[in-house]
């Protein structure tokens, strides 16, 4: 094998030639320079329909656009490739999108209503491996099933190009998720020509893993302000260059290179050494130091929630799995809520701007209300409640994740230790269980194995259901998530169904406010905090607007000298 390697090297050396592009001094385009951004992980795939994680989204948001997007710096819906927000029919089922008329894809083909419907039909008609929930998670999460899966209904009905620049999308049911979900990068519009040319739907691979087609690996073709230049996996870098034919304000930078640097300290040091111009997921302890050294820390609004899940052990087999039945008693859950010193956690472990949570969504989401039962830090009260419930000394299996830093939970181990001491002070006994984040921790909590556990969520778009519905609505089998013990709270589930299918936004908001109050009385978990994650850039980087959804647009970024 070494011999073969040698032969390969010799063969390569015979024809080795530099294929570097010489910098062209083209007078027309302004030179905006190169920005290097430190990412925590590699993007997974470059076809938005198959994407679901933050690192992939960050790159795709520069290359692609959807019909709707969010206002820079907020979670508010604004038109993207649509020229205006859609008109909604009276029954709330048909959405008419007027489209921009001056848009071309990176491959030079025109953007129009047919291209929009082509994409929707593509998503609906995915087959084979593409139906794998790991491949198309967001389609399945928001819309349900596919054309050939009658057993799994989908809420999307049809798309019709009523004229060249008007697309009419019809749904099967009313839901608060639509059209807000269209601002997700997963529902970006690809060039139909490129999709066909590079066989985008040809997701193959049986046995071990999906194999993505050429389109998803080398030829992403959207309408965004940047296009793909090069994806260098060996060196952990992906380069995108300015799209000079962009319909809107063209980007200022010539190119952006996203470099993968998994370790947080390495990212910080590389910024300090001038090797990169910015990075994401800044450790809360580094804010001050970075600012003192002349870097710009850009905190995003907290669009997330950290909670302490409590397992009521209502699912079949919970007792056999060793779940403590004590948590079925509301007084014990209230004791936990009063025992947790949220303020200390917020002030000592979370960055500036973080706040203690009183319910399971941040105040910026429609449906948040002050009108809920608030559980203050009160160890005495906690102890009393525990005594009333005759549950002093109850042992709780407390699960927490290691090796992970989430936007809502920068250091899970530290937060665990504080809560763990709090609960012991209140009269509980704690049995700590640590697991690596993915898949072990997520698997264990989702299977209802923890008595109490730490978890959280960053919202996908401004929608109450995206928060509380995800956590507390009925799941498969008509019961709540196993995380919280699979409770069967009919009243709660009915309220959810009612709110989700209410077409009038104002009425819906009122329904969600009532739901929040209802949830805080039922107390399936303890809301802990909302924490603002931050980006950092060098001081010569201008124009990067932090987004609460972590969906920053780099086209407005410039480098000053």
């Amino acid at each position, binding site marked *: 094998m070494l011999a073969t390697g040698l032969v390969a090297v010799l063969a390569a050396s015979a024809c080795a030639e530099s294929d570097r592009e010489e910098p062209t001094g083209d007078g027309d385009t302004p030179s905006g320079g190169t920005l290097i951004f430190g990412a925590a992980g590699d993007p997974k795939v470059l076809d938005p329909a198959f994407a679901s994680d933050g690192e992939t989204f960050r790159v795709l948001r520069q290359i692609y656009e959807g019909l709707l997007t969010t206002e820079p710096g907020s979670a508010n819906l604004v038109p993207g490739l649509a020229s205006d927000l859609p008109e909604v029919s009276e029954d709330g089922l048909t959405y008419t999108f007027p489209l921009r008329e001056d848009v071309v894809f990176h491959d030079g083909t025109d953007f129009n209503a047919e291209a929009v419907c082509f994409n929707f039909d593509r998503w609906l008609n995915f087959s084979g491996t593409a139906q794998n929930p790991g491949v198309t998670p967001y389609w399945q999460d928001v819309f349900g099933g596919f054309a050939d899966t009658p057993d799994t209904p989908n809420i999307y009905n049809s798309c019709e190009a009523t004229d060249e620049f008007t697309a009419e999308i019809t749904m099967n049911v009313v839901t608060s998720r639509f059209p807000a979900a269209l601002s997700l990068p997963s529902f970006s519009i690809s060039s139909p020509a490129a999709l066909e040319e590079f066989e985008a739907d040809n997701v193959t691979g049986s046995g071990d893993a999906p194999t993505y087609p050429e389109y998803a690996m080398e030829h992403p073709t959207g309408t965004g302000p940047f296009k793909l230049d090069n994806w260098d996996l060996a060196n952990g870098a992906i380069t995108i260059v300015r799209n000079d034919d962009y319909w809107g304000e063209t980007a200022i930078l010539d190119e952006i290179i996203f470099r993968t640097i998994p370790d947080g300290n390495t990212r910080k040091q590389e910024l300090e050494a001038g090797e990169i111009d910015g990075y994401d997921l800044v*450790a809360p302890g580094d804010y001050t130091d970075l600012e003192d050294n002349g870097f710009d820390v850009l905190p995003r609004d907290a669009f997330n929630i950290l909670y302490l899940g409590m397992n009521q052990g209502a699912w079949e087999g919970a007792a056999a799995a060793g779940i403590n039945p004590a948590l079925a008693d509301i007084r014990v859950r209230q004791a936990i809520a009063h025992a947790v010193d949220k303020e*200390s956690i917020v*002030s000592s472990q979370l960055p500036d701007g973080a706040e203690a949570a009183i319910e399971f969504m941040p105040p910026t989401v429609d449906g948040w209300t002050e009108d809920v039962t608030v559980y203050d830090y009160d160890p005495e009260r906690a102890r009393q409640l525990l005594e009333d419930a005759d549950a002093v000394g109850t042992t709780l299996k407390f699960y*927490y994740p290691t090796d992970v830093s989430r936007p809502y939970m920068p250091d899970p181990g530290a937060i665990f230790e504080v809560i*763990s001491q709090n609960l012991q002070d209140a009269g509980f006994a704690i049995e700590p269980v640590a*697991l690596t*984040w993915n898949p*072990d921790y997520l698997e264990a909590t989702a299977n209802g194995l923890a008595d109490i556990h730490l978890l959280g969520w960053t919202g996908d778009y401004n929608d109450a259901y995206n928060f509380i519905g995800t956590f507390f609505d009925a799941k498969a089998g008509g019961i709540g998530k196993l995380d919280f013990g699979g409770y069967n709270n009919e009243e709660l589930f009915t309220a959810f169904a009612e709110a989700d299918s209410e077409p009038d936004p104002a009425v819906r908001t009122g329904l969600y406010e009532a739901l929040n109050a209802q949830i805080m009385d039922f107390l399936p978990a303890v809301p802990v905090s909302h924490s603002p994650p931050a980006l950092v850039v060098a001081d010569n980087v201008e124009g990067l607007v932090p987004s609460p959804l972590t969906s920053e647009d780099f086209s407005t970024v410039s480098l000053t000298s």
Partner: protein
Amino acid sequence: MTGIDLGKKERIDRLAELTATGPDQGGVSLTRDALRRLRRNPVALLGAFLVFIFVFVAAFAPLLAPKDPRTLYLLREVRPNFIPGSREGFPLGVDNLGRDELSRLILGSQQSLLIGVVSTIMGLVVGMGFGILAGGLGGKIDTVVMRLVDIMLSIPGLLMAITVALLLGFNQFSIMVAIAVTQVPIFARLLRGSMLAQRNSDYAVASRCLGVPQRKIIFGHVLPNSVSPVIVQATLSLATAIIEAAALSFLGLGNADRAIPEWGSMLAEAQDFLTVAPRLAFYPCICIVIAALGFTLLGEALREALDPKFRR
């Protein structure tokens, strides 16, 4: 890859060969002679001194520690960009949860020593089992056992440790097992090599000629004369174990019970506060270096002392 002793066949075999040379021919007992030379060796003295401090602190940790290592004394004063440093009652300051750093360091020595000792003993026992099987019985069994050992050696050590930790859950015991597993093939190879050398030595051949039963030769003569390289390796692997525990913690596979201090996990956790409080990393790091240096130097000196070639 963290260890000093990424078990190298050749080095192990060589160590075996070096230290397994024949029985004492002089008038002085081998042990006494070794001790004498040990005392004259500055490397040995330094190593022994460091190990002594380490073991002493670990043994009397509960008495030496001024405060409870679990209590969150100054949590309310901690900010993401400020962790209280040295002050009255807290000579080394507090950690990111407001706990007394000095007490945690002192009690941490206990856990570190425990991990080192228990994982080494586990690796030693299983590894010696393999070694005796292979070196004592020889033939087909030798081949099979050694192929198995080769397989274990060809898997990167840390990788094996990670999978073991994932299998057994994150607690003190699984960390010990994870580290022990990486030590097994090293001990096995070492003992086998040294037993093979002994088996062909003059006295073993002579016993065999005299008709002494095989089992008696192995357990009565060959084995006792073969263990010295294993003992030496054991001191070295104590150091490796302490360092490897830090690596496992860094990867998020440390002990789930955060209240129990251990140097490796303290160092790993401090990585998040390097700009705010670098001392939280330096203190446990210095402790690890001292303990690991102590064991390695002592082991090295022991090896030299046991090597008859150095007897003058």
